[in-house]
């Protein structure tokens, strides 16, 4: 073995290489203390007794001068008296034999020992491994801390997993549907009571966990109306591993089940699957009942005369019935989804706006109506440009939410209003017209009865007037009755007859009347038979009305004409006069019931029913009536009747 080279360390170098050294003499008095040891043990000074600061820990001997030589060549461990720290190293005799030197360093087992002793890493010699050991210990501590952190995280995750599992089990256990969760080998992981009940399994669900379900489809198929389809469905679901929802299965008992299959994948790996069965018999029954109810409602809505519209909570139209479409003059596709307030704008009869009742009801939730009587109508401008009188009510729909939309019910009362108006006019006119002959008759009769001495010729004349007024009264009553019969749908008595002959008879009957007014009745056109199939009495009424009107409205000295002819398959009757004529603005209303042209009243009394009776009869025969007239020149009424009306 080659001896080490003499590196000639001086005292300063020894101090750098062994900064924790100390030297002592034969009396165990301290001779020198290294730089770092001095920092660690500030009270350890030259001249001090070694034993005041250090004990000999290993070998375990009393610290006595005589024992020191025996320590040479051994590992020696001193222990500090105060802090119980170790110094490990070895003792060497000083070259001059005056004492001993300890070469070593503290032995620390925790990084915190450094700070506790007022040291830092730089206090150790570069070759000293204590700092490296401490670094390793620190790394171990870090790894240990990591492990603790991982364990803590795992514990948290396991606890969370257990909580989730418990919640899942509780959730599944309380589901109304039957749930079965299987692992990839079809062993039961979770099953609930509802599943056991659905499949008639008489066991506690907890006891089923872990059981193999491979053959369960075969065992349960007898419950299903189509057993093989049930088995095949399960097989295909398991093979395909794709989510299936809402499969409908019918049990032999008549119950209907809905089934979901959900494969469970975790990070791409198949972990099993979930079956979910729900008994939807009640739901299906309710849906069928609802469909039936909806159908009934649709039919009802389609057949009522009132318009009905519903909206959603924003006021957009969701449903309209046929009457609503007819009244508004638009199609369903044009209106569905459209804001109701935009298509249903009302005005009062005095032209003032009604606000926006749709927004009002949507906002307040309080129902609104125009009024319960027909007199409380509003104007409605329809989408096809008409103006109608309507009554309406709007009410909020209260469903599961506060504002589920609204329902509008409205009625077109235009016709009713017009009829009411006409009736009012009629009552007024008829009252007046009836009162006139009655007043006249009363006056003459009072005179006759009040003067017993009245000459016979005068009495006869007065009674003649009474008879004439009675006849007029009877005529009016007859017209009202005739109108009433027509309104009631009087049946026609069709028979073939010669219309020319009928017209001749009527002309003959009316000639005395016209003659008294110097109004001539002319026969226009050829006087040849024209046979027609019609209700003779009703056609007579037509001709009498037209000729009577012509005579009535023709001044003395004028003329009236009538002609009958065939034109293709039609029979044409034309009655003309040289009378006062009719203003153009009165023509559209001429055939309306109870209508009397303003200029007619001063020329002749009447009910306003004659021409409407004429038009009704003509139309019932499948014919048409047309009038040409010029005020001051006269009028021509042309009736076209099918010679053979259809049934």
């Amino acid at each position, binding site marked *: 073995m080659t001896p080490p080279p003499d590196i000639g360390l001086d005292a300063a170098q020894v101090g750098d290489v062994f900064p924790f050294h100390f030297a002592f003499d034969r009396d165990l008095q301290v001779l020198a203390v290294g730089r770092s040891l001095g920092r660690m043990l500030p009270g350890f000074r030259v001249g001090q007794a070694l034993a005041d600061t250090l004990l000999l820990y290993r070998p375990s001997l009393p610290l006595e001068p005589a024992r020191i030589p025996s320590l040479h060549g051994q590992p020696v461990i001193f222990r500090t008296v105060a802090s119980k720290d170790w110094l490990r190293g070895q003792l060497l005799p000083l070259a001059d034999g005056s004492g001993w030197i300890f070469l070593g360093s503290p032995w620390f087992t*925790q*990084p*915190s*020992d*450094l*700070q506790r002793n007022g*040291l*830092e*890493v*730089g206090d150790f010699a*570069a070759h000293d491994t204590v*700092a*490296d050991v*401490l*670094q*390793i210990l*620190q*790394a171990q*501590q*870090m*790894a240990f*801390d*990591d492990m603790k*952190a*991982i364990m803590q*995280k795992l514990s948290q995750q396991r606890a969370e997993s257990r909580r989730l599992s418990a919640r899942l089990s509780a959730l599944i256990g309380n589901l109304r549907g039957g749930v079965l969760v299987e692992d990839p080998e079809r062993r039961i992981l979770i099953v609930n009571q509802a599943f056991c009940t659905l499949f008639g399994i008489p066991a506690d669900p907890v006891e089923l966990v872990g059981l193999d379900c491979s053959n369960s489809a075969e065992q349960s198929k007898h419950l299903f109306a189509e057993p093989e389809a049930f088995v095949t469905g399960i097989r295909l679901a398991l093979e395909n591993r794709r989510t299936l929802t809402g499969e409908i299965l019918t049990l032999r008992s008549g119950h209907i089940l809905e089934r979901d299959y959900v494969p469970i994948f975790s990070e791409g790996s198949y972990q099993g699957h979930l079956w979910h069965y729900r008994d939807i018999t009640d739901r299906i029954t309710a849906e069928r009942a609802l469909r039936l109810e909806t159908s009934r409602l649709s039919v009802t809505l389609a057949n009522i005369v009132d318009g009905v519209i519903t909206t959603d909570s924003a006021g957009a139209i969701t449903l309209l019935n046929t009457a609503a479409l007819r009244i508004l003059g638009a199609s369903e596709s044009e209106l569905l989804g459209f804001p109701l307030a935009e298509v249903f704008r009302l005005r009062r009869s005095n032209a003032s706006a009604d606000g926006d009742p749709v927004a009002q009801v949507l906002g307040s939730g309080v129902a609104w109506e125009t009024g319960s009587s027909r007199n409380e109508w509003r104007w409605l401008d329809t989408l096809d440009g008409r103006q109608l009188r309507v009554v309406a009510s709007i009410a909020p729909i209260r469903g599961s939410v506060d504002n589920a939309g609204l329902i509008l019910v409205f009625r077109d009362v235009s016709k009713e209003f017009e009829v009411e108006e006409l009736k009012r006019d009629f009552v007024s006119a008829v009252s007046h017209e009836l009162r006139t002959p009655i007043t006249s008759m009363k006056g003459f009769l009072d005179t006759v009865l009040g003067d017993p001495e009245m000459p016979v010729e005068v009495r006869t004349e007065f009674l003649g007037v009474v008879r004439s007024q009675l006849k007029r009264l009877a005529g009016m009553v007859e017209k009202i009755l005739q109108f009433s019969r027509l309104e009631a749908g009087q049946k026609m008595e069709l028979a073939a007859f010669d219309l020319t002959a009928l017209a001749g008879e009527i002309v003959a009957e009316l000639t005395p009347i016209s003659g008294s007014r110097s109004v001539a009745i002319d026969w226009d056109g050829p006087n040849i038979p024209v046979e027609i199939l019609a209700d003779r009495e009703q056609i007579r009424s037509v001709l009498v009305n037209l000729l009577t009107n012509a005579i009535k409205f023709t001044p003395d000295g004028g003329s009236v004409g009538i002609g009958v002819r065939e034109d293709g398959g039609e029979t044409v009757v034309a009655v003309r006069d040289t009378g006062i004529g009719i203003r153009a603005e009165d023509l559209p209303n001429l055939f309306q019931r109870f209508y009397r042209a303003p200029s007619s009243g001063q020329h002749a009394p009447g009910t306003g029913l004659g021409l409407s009776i004429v038009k009704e009869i003509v139309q019932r025969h499948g014919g048409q009536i047309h009038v040409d007239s010029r005020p001051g020149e006269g009028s021509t009424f042309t009736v076209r009747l099918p010679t053979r009306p259809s049934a």
Partner: protein
Amino acid sequence: MYGLVNRAVEKLVCSRFGEPAWERIKARAGVDVEFFASNESYPDSMTYGLVAAASAELGLPAATILESFGEYWVLEVAPAGYGAMLDSAGRTLPDFLENLPHFHTRVAMIFPNLQPPRFETSDRTQDSLVLHYHSNRLGLEPFLLGIIRGLGKRFQVAVQVDHIGSRGTGSDHETFRITWSAGGAA
């Protein structure tokens, strides 16, 4: 890169922006690691990816994130991870900086799979020294800047750092002149 570094990035993001932000950053970086082991070596690309994803997710420049991270490392992570060793690494800023080379030498010896940076100091004066930073990793200078600023706060001195040499200007390493003065952190 040392797992402790990635853990520190995670802690910084979670403490300031919340755990959901960290999960989004990991997803964006394509990092599927549930737990970074402190003494384990992870690919540098993972750390770079996390920093880039954090920059995109948080809308901050990567350099700002790295510098914040450097400070956070010194003031929060290292005391928790290194504990008493950090306390014993130097009583003053210059002592600490001069111990850095020894520290990293030991780290390289204890964890041979890691590739810690190499530090040298020179030109020490009363109030400055030059720190030489050798690393085969690029772009981490802001991290080092943050560390030095954090050390200033730790030792309660005002610190000025001048980047006086870099690989971008022909040197083979990064060089910083660090100047300190008593009176608290800069």
